[in-house]
């Protein structure tokens, strides 16, 4: 059986997390595990007061971990994230799914995390500790505590691109997702569902460092699967993913084709 303990704040809930317990965000993943009898936890920890705000911060825009995809869609400051939020689930999922939970969502999920990775977001724990999203994601299986917010550095909206490749539209889950922040000199390209966690395509980033043009696009596409480890699942084989990743990256870079 599953016990549920509710604490007044996220920080207090963080203090109560222990072996065999799971923090409840929007619950879209946790509750499936409960319903299907996941034996790895028997206690849900939740907070009565959660951080669901979007606001300015010294480092950029602060998004509370409990902010849902629907909240993002109604936040004018986050226009660049609207296509990402809109691509996640159907309307009901978007009303429930949180940004904090998305950081932990296993493949084929985690589209928002991919975008946040390309945006160099910082992950802020309720304890106040903060770390770059890249190292956070790489070690998320060992993450302790509760994420309080993510901070997204200010971004040139035109430089940010996102694309989700899915078989069912709207709402299908990702065969892969790609996010890119094509800022000059230090671009970011991140893939979702092409490795165990959202991962930067460093080969593509290197190629695009001189700017986005025909030859750098060709080079970026050729190098984009470097360091990625796509896997087989019910949606696509690893082979297929590796074959089509350059095709989809090219479309994203050229801004062509339907998303």
């Amino acid at each position, binding site marked *: *059986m599953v016990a549920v303990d509710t604490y007044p704040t996220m920080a207090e809930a963080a203090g109560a997390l222990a072996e065999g317990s799971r923090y409840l965000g929007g619950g879209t993943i946790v509750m499936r595990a409960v319903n299907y009898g996941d034996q790895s936890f028997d206690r849900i920890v939740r907070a009565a007061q959660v951080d669901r705000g979007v606001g300015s911060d010294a480092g950029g825009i602060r998004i509370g971990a409990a902010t849902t995809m629907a909240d993002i869609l109604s936040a004018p400051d986050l226009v660049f994230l609207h296509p990402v939020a809109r691509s996640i689930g159907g309307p009901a999922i978007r009303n429930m799914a949180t940004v904090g939970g998305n950081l932990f969502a296993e493949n084929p999920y985690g589209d928002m995390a991919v975008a946040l990775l390309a945006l160099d977001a910082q992950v802020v724990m309720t304890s106040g500790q903060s770390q770059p999203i890249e190292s956070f994601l790489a070690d998320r299986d060992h993450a302790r505590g509760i994420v309080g917010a993510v901070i997204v550095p200010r971004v040139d909206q035109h430089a940010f691109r996102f694309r989700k490749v899915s078989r069912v539209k709207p709402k299908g889950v990702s065969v892969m997702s790609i996010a890119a922040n094509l800022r000059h000199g230090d671009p970011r390209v991140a893939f979702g569902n092409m490795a165990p966690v959202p991962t930067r395509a460093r080969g593509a980033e290197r190629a695009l460092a001189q700017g986005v043009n025909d030859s750098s696009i060709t080079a970026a596409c050729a190098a984009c699967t470097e360091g990625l480890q796509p896997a087989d699942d019910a949606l696509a084989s690893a082979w297929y993913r590796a074959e089509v990743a350059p095709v989809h990256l090219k479309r994203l870079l050229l801004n062509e084709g339907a998303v």
Partner: protein
Amino acid sequence: MSSIEFRKDLFADERDDNLKEIGKPTIRQDILGHVTGRTPYYDDHLFDGLLHMRAVRSPHHHAQIRSIDTSVAEQMPGVRRVATAKDVPHNLNTLLSLINFGRDDEPLCAHDKVRYMGETVAWVIADTERQARDACAKVRVDYNVLPHVLDVEEALTPNAPVVNEIYPNNTFDYHEKYDHQKLRFGDVNAAFARADHVIEAEYQMSPIEQAPIETCGAIAAPEINDRFVCYTNTQALFFSLGTTAKLLNVASSRLHFIGGTAGGGFGGKVDSIVEPTAVLGAMLTGRPVKFAWDRYEEMQVGAPRGGERWRLKDGVMSDGTVIAREFTGFFDSGAYMRLSPYAIIKGTGHLPGPYSIPNVASNVYCCITNRTPATAMRGFGITAVDFAIECQMDKVAEAVGMNPVELRILNAYRDGDMKAHRRKAKNTALIECCQVAAAKADWAISRQAAQQSSLTPMPERQNIPETVTDTEGLIGERRQGRVASTSPSTQSNGRVPAGTHREAIGGAPVQNPDMQIDADRIGHKMGSSPTQIPAAATKAAAPTAPPAAPSVPAAAPPVAPVAPPPAATVPTPPQPAAPYSPSAPFSRGTKRPGSSPFTSGFRRR
């Protein structure tokens, strides 16, 4: 609402136009319930004290069960009962035994070994679903993992593991004679020799899950008068009832089944697994019990439309006339038969598609593999081969450089054509369908093609040709390595004269003795004189072979006809009781030596 156009020029006599409902748009009679959410699906029947039953499932494709330890699970909170194969009174069945088709080959709960991933090995009945799940996780099964086979053709090879000991050759035995279903019409090899083109290709369809939004489920509860009520979403209520009666060894009169409302089915709700399981749960606990598959189970253990592989070989003249077509087909039945062998007989009757082809041969195999058993789905037995046939027609059109629609019109059945299974084609309309489809799609066809009609007979197509036959593929030969090819044999060793219908193979026997009044069977004792029901004596000789469909096999030498009815006038004296042998084919309503295990009243549990 879109309306349907009826072509009176083609189907003048088909329907009376003055009907009030048929052919007119109408409002579904059940839709008010649907839009108000008041339609009562099985799970909308509430029971006080409802218990929840869950299955422990095999993580292996193929494994021996060494032992099952339920002791920890039994001590878990909320657990009322843990059950295993030994709790199932008659733990062996085949779905179509209710129509005397096939041998019992499938347990409700595995005991000696598991044959597919997800097969049931035990159940837990608990107060809540979560408690049942938690306890299932604590059932310890010691498996000895065996090599498995997941490919239909690999299953036919001599060293493939035996999946199901009831059919040790990994194929269904057709007519107690061959390891495949044969169809022979004319002489394909002679026709291939004179054809201008021979076109060969292979087609494959993966398994497809019906995936109804409402998963398979049932709630059973003890009822007054020593009966059990069962609310179920089965698509085959009396199948489910009969199967439950047999597996649980109770009279069908003690089962009160209520169905009729399914949240989608598409063929996936005929297998009658959740009903006997829920009733078993109610019997073991004396409480209302719900047994339902979750989404994972629906996808993993819910029987899909099985995968199929087809090889087609066509002999074609340069004008596009198809003069020969050969099929080699493999149905993936999974670990148990269920409906697959029957689907093959149905599919064979469909060959060579809606085309008049004077020489046709097919070998179709019902292959047993360590996959989830297959079952019915829309267009059962036909869909994959139709896909193959129509792809093949396009390939043929390309090979002879012909408009694919015209090719179809040229070869399409017309009224009166003789089909390969020796029935005359009636009510044909493929030519007209092609013409209308071409017009609607703005696809140009020749004047000549546009003028053809299904009603214009082609006398040369109306005869049964002389047919060459063979005896290749006798049961067991292939697995001994004595048959190299799976395709129809090139070595004929028999000839059936032109015009032979083979209707002499025999009419199908009474399919379901259950349909005959037999007071004993429904739990009444009608006195001891067997002379009252002479029909029972006939039933005792129920065939062990699947009923030979009258004309489908069309193979020579003639398939052994089903046992002729014994002279019904001689009443059989009562037989001494003999031990019941579960390996014998089951026939509900059959009088076995001694009293039927399905007459009740005194066999209460």
